C-alpha cells in the first residue's frame, strides 16, 4: 500500500495533466460532433436533393470506416497537402467528424419523431424557416435526442484515448509513459481506469438530470 502511495506521489501530476487533456478533448470533440450532427441531420431533411445527397454520403462513408483510419488520415494525411495539424487538433477533427455522423442519425430520428401537427400548427401561426426550427421543432427534437446524445457523450470520454496513438498526452498515454518507466502496469492502469470513471460517472448523472429537466411538463 505504501508502495502504491509512493508510486502515486510520483505519477499523480502527470496523470492529472493527462486527465485535463482528456476532458478538453472530450468537450471539443463532442461540441464539434454535435454541430456536424445537427447540420447533417437538417441537411438530410432538406428540400434540396444536393444537400440531402451530401449528408447521406457523409454519414455512410464516415460510419463505414474505422475512426483510427480517419485519425491517421487527418494527422498524417493532411500534412502531405501542406496542412499542419497539431496532435490535439487532429484528434478533435477526427473524433468530431466521426461522432458527427452518428449524432446526425440521433438528431434525424429526433426530428422525424415530431408530429406533423406541430409543423402545421407552427406554420399556421406564421412561423417559418429558422424561427420555426429554433422555437418549435428543435427544442422538441433535442429532447427526444437527449438519451442518444448522452450515450455518445459517454463513449466520447473513452474514445479520446485513441488520441494516444497520435502522441496526444492524454490520460491513457500519460499512464503508458509512467508504466514504461516504473513497470507498475496493474496499479497505473487501474488508476487510469478509475480516472476515466471519474469523468464518465458525473457525466452520466448530468445527462440524466438534463433528460429529467427536459421532460418537465410531459405526461
Amino acid at each position, binding site marked *: 500500500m505504501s508502495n502504491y502511495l509512493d508510486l502515486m506521489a510520483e505519477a499523480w501530476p502527470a496523470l492529472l495533466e493527462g486527465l485535463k487533456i482528456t476532458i478538453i478533448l472530450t468537450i471539443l470533440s463532442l461540441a464539434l460532433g454535435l454541430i456536424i450532427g445537427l447540420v447533417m441531420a437538417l441537411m438530410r431533411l432538406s*428540400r434540396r436533393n444536393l444537400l440531402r445527397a451530401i449528408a447521406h454520403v457523409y454519414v455512410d462513408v464516415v460510419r463505414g470506416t474505422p475512426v483510427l483510419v480517419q485519425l491517421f488520415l487527418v494527422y498524417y494525411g493532411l500534412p502531405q497537402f501542406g496542412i499542419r495539424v497539431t496532435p490535439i487538433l487532429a484528434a478533435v477533427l477526427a473524433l468530431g467528424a466521426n461522432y458527427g455522423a452518428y449524432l446526425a442519425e440521433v438528431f434525424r430520428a429526433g426530428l422525424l419523431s415530431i*408530429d406533423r*401537427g*406541430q409543423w*402545421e*400548427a*407552427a*406554420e*399556421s*401561426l*406564421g*412561423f*417559418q424557416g429558422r*424561427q420555426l426550427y429554433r*422555437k*418549435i421543432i428543435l*427544442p*422538441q427534437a433535442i*429532447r427526444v435526442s437527449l438519451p442518444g446524445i448522452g450515450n455518445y457523450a459517454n463513449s466520447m470520454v473513452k474514445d479520446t484515448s485513441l488520441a494516444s496513438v497520435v502522441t496526444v498526452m492524454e490520460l491513457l498515454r500519460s499512464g503508458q509513459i509512467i508504466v514504461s518507466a516504473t513497470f507498475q502496469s496493474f496499479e497505473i492502469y487501474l488508476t487510469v481506469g478509475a480516472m476515466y470513471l471519474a469523468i464518465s460517472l458525473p457525466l452520466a448523472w448530468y445527462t440524466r438530470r438534463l433528460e429529467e429537466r*427536459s421532460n*418537465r*411538463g*410531459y*405526461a
Partner: protein
Amino acid sequence: MPETSILSATDIVKDFKTQRALDVCSFGVREGEVVVIIGPSGSGKSTLLRCLNLIEVPDEGMLRLADEDVLSMPRDGLGRKRHSNIVRARTTLTGSTSMVFQKFNLFPHMTVLDNIAAAPHFVGSVPKELARKTAIDLLERVGLADRQSAFPAQLSGGQQQRVAIARALAKKPRIMLYDEPTSALDPELVGDVLGVIRDLAASGMTKVIVTHEMDFAQQVADRVLFMDKGRIIEEGTPEQIFAHPVHERTADFLRRVRVQVPPPISTADTDLRGTHDIN
C-alpha cells in the same frame, strides 16, 4: 365568388397519391360571416380548410385574400420560384388567418402562456411583456387564467383546445379556421369548447368551421356548406340545409347524423327511410 369575400378559393383541385380530395371547389367567406362546412368523413372538408392557409397546397385553383390575388395554381407552382411563391402566399394567408386543429397541436415544450405568446412575440415582433399580457387576457376569456404556467400535457382535452383557441386568437387574425375542434374531446367537454367558439362568433369574428356538431352548426352558422366526395354539393342558410335540403345526398347525410329532416319532395314516396337508423 362575391366581390365582397374577405377570403376566397376558386376552382380548387387537390390530388393525393391515390385519390382526388378536392374536385373543383369554390368557396368564399365574407367579413363577419360564419360558414360551417359539414359532410361525411373523407369528403374533403379538412383539405379545403387547409388549402385556405396553404398547410395543404392545391394543385389547381386560386386563393384571394380581400382584394389581393395570393396564389394561382398551377402557375405559381412551376419552375425555380415554386417554393418561394408558396412561402410568400402562405405568409400572406397566415398573416390573416388562424387555425384550430382537431388534435389541438399545442407546443408540448412550452407553458400555456408561452404557447399563446409565442407567435405574437416571435413572428409578430410584439414585445414580450405585451404579448404575455395579451395572452393572460385571452386566457381569462377562455376561462383558464389559473392555468397559465401549466404545460399542455397537464390539461384536459377541453382545456387544451381552449388554449389552442386563445393561441389562435393571440395573433389577431381576421379569419378563424376551425377543423373539427371538438371531435377529439370527451362528450362532457364539448360544450365548454363550443361555448368559447360561439361567444367569439357573437364578437363578430369571421369564421370557417368544420364540425359534426349539427345543433351547434345550426345555431352559429350564417351559411352551411355540404361536401361529399371532394365537391361542395349544396350550400345555403342553416334553415335551407337542415330543414329543406335539395340534394338527396345532403338529406341522406343529415339522416345518418340523426337530424330530423323531411324527405326531399322528389322522393316523398320513400318517407319511411327517415325513421330508420342508418348508422
